[in-house]
């Protein structure tokens, strides 16, 4: 064959491969998942009892504005509502209720307000304060598990994995096992690259949670969703889809499960269905990550104008969000870097975030932003930090590959990029294409 024809054939072959491999997920996902969970059934919403309870408590604080117990309980209900809807209006309400309670009875006598405060801080990404308040809570509630769950959650976000691990072990030994501890164990296992163990632990947690006579709907749906997210991380798109559907059976229109379903369908190459799910998800909760993902899918489907308006919405949400930059620094930085936009701003956002939140994903975000801002050396040392736990995450490998490529180390770059795609061929609809193109250019 003449050289020119060879070239064209080569390009065509690669383009074909790219298209075909968008459906790679189906073939790749032999559903090697051994972790089994009981079949999903709908769980009733229990709305009535909650409604009368809220009304009771709100009436109570009207009659007695110093009923700190009622404020504590209200904070708890608002926090649960936040979990279900994602709306930070509930975060504000919970915060105000906790503060009102503490103004009446100080924290050394007020475990309920202290607990609500720590949980509000977790949700607001003030992880240091959350940790400190949860430690104070553990001192006055030392025969209970729940303060340690908050501490561990905060430590993981701060990157203090060793301490988080040791607290989980200690609490399990001294206070006993629980579904809450199992989910933290699963999270730590996934961070350490033990994805199979993480799946197994989560599946035990789901099964155990379901044996409760009165299981809580959102909690069970969350566990199933988390199982699905972990499966997706392992490149098992079939399992991810199945778990997301199970989550939706448990809790119809649970926004997290809608997003995961969209992600799974996109990974299996079904873009139109993926778009449908993401549209449902963002209609429920305009989550910045979902909106960005929807934009990417519109782009893939050739719907440029709609893509552009989603991208604009991401920025708007992140900037105008009530709790502001604190919650969105990371997502926005990643969004900019992924789409080669506003490199300096992305870098500044990621750097600010990493100042206090020094977990591996903070290092990864800053590494990626640093690369796009032309700071190759910094990117190299940061991505090393991001990979230190052995986390098996295709995005980390992809970032590492692109950084090594920019640093001129083609061999290592190719290794990482191939590793990313072997683990999860469609870890991200757009970024996976970029990864593939980079491999062939190397």
């Amino acid at each position, binding site marked *: 064959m003449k050289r020119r024809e060879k070239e064209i054939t080569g390009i065509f072959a690669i383009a074909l491969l790219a298209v075909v491999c968008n459906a790679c997920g189906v073939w790749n996902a032999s559903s090697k998942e051994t972790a089994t969970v009981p079949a999903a059934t709908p769980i009733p919403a229990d709305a009535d009892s909650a409604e009368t309870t809220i*009304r009771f408590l709100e009436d109570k604080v009207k009659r007695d504005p110093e009923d700190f117990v009622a404020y504590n309980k209200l904070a708890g209900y608002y926090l649960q509502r936040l979990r279900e809807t994602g709306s930070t209006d509930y975060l504000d309400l919970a915060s105000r209720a906790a503060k009102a309670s503490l103004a009446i009875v100080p924290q050394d006598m007020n475990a309920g307000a202290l607990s609500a405060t720590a949980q509000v801080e977790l949700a607001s990404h003030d992880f240091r304060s959350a940790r400190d308040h949860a430690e104070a809570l553990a001192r*006055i509630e030392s025969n209970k598990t729940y303060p340690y769950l908050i501490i561990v*959650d905060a430590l993981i976000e701060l990157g203090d994995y060793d301490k988080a691990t040791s607290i989980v072990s200690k609490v399990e030994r001294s206070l006993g096992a*629980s579904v809450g501890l199992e989910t933290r164990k699963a999270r730590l296992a996934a961070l350490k690259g033990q994805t199979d163990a993480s799946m197994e632990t989560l599946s035990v947690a789901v099964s155990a949670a379901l044996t409760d*006579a009165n299981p809580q709907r959102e909690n069970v749906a969350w566990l199933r969703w988390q199982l699905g997210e972990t499966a997706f991380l392992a490149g098992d798109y079939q399992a991810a889809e199945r778990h997301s559907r199970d989550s939706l059976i448990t809790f119809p229109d649970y926004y*997290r499960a809608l997003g995961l379903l969209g992600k799974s369908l996109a990974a299996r190459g079904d873009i139109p269905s993926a778009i449908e799910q993401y549209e449902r998800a963002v209609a429920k909760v305009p989550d910045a990550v979902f909106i960005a993902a929807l934009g990417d899918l519109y782009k893939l489907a050739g719907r440029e104008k709609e893509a552009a308006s989603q991208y604009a919405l991401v920025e708007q949400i992140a900037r105008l969000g009530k*709790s502001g930059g604190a919650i969105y620094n990371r997502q926005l930085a990643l969004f900019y870097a992924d789409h080669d936009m506003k490199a300096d701003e992305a870098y500044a956002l990621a750097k600010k975030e990493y100042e206090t939140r020094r977990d591996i994903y903070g290092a990864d975000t800053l590494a990626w932003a640093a690369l796009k801002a032309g700071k190759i050396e910094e990117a190299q040392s940061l991505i090393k930090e991001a990979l230190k736990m052995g986390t098996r995450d295709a995005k980390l490998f992809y970032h590492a590959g692109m950084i090594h490529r920019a640093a001129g180390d083609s061999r290592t770059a190719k290794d990482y990029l191939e590793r990313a795609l072997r683990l999860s061929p469609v870890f991200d609809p757009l970024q996976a294409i970029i990864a593939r193109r980079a491999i062939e250019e190397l």
Partner: protein
Amino acid sequence: MFRFRKTIAPVAAVLTLTLAMALAPAPQIKASDHGDAPINSNDQAIDQGDTYAFLDPNDNSKVIIALTVRGFIVPGEAVNFGFFDSRVRYRFEIETTGDARPDQSINITFPERTSPTTPQMATVELPFGQVFTAPTTLPTLAGTPNPPTITTDAASGVAFFAGEVDDPFFFDIPGFARFRASVLAGAPDPTQFNRGRDSFSGYNILAIALSIPASLFRLQRTSGNPDANVIGVQSLTQRREETIITRAGIVGVGKFRTLDRSGNPGLNALVIPFGRKDEYNFATPLDDSRGQFAGDIVATLGALGTNATNIGILASVYVARGDYLRLNISVPNTGTGGGSNPEAAFPNGRRLGDDIVDTFLFFVANQNVLRDNVNSNDVPFRDTFPFLAPPQQPRASGDDNTRN
């Protein structure tokens, strides 16, 4: 008393909010870029409220003992929270020889709840080996509560009740917190008690109550109990020392260990410093009598201005022979709501209607009158067993049934 009842923010029930939520033009979203696993747990099942011990005013040959646990239940939460944890052992320890060592015990355990409309069948182990079973009283969201299910065991003559009740305790927590702060700041201000509102008003709690023929305790004359007429009572909540999680659920393994204990009102919550509460919960009356907490008690009461004489009086009640309620069964108890005659009041055991806060404050204030101005429960107690008031039920909006 002084049971701040660990007011935990529950994260248990799904809800729809009745407040009008004005959505801002740019929707306010919480990012889910970090792990946010649920933070609920059934930890509150071991949280003790109060312990009571008194003679049945209708028949002074019967001793009534009761414990309350898992408080601050809102009427609308009755079905979600109104059941007993199957992995908890509820235990009364009875002291009959006048020292700190318990002599007898009564254990109550429950199987796992199978459905919100099926009573749990309690197993009650009496001293000296008798055992019987009895169903719980179911909670309900209806306008009126279910009548109390009372089981009487023919063999022992013991009557049993377990279920949701109105929280019998009455006390102004913010008033006390401010008074305490004023004392610690060097300027005691009793006017902080002018607020006088019952922090427990309108809330329900779980209770286990038994009516026991006094003869069942087989009291004997000992040097510590020369007239064989004093019974010491404390209550404990326990879990097994190890807990395992499997797909089939969560299972307790090994010996029971105590997670919370309750005898005299106020000792643990008020007097023991927060840093040592764990130690107190895991300790025993023997530790009390050996003075394990003496330093803390002296320090705390001293800081509140109590002099040595009155510290001694409180210590003699609370810890000298362990933290038990001590009931003299030869002192007649008469009156409604479980008894009201002054002669039979706390620290002679403890009746539902006794204002133990005022009694405690009297000694704290060196036998000057000091009151929290919350003098009775928000709803009346029953005049017959189980004496505890029925649980408060959900009402129409605008009436939370708070009568404080």
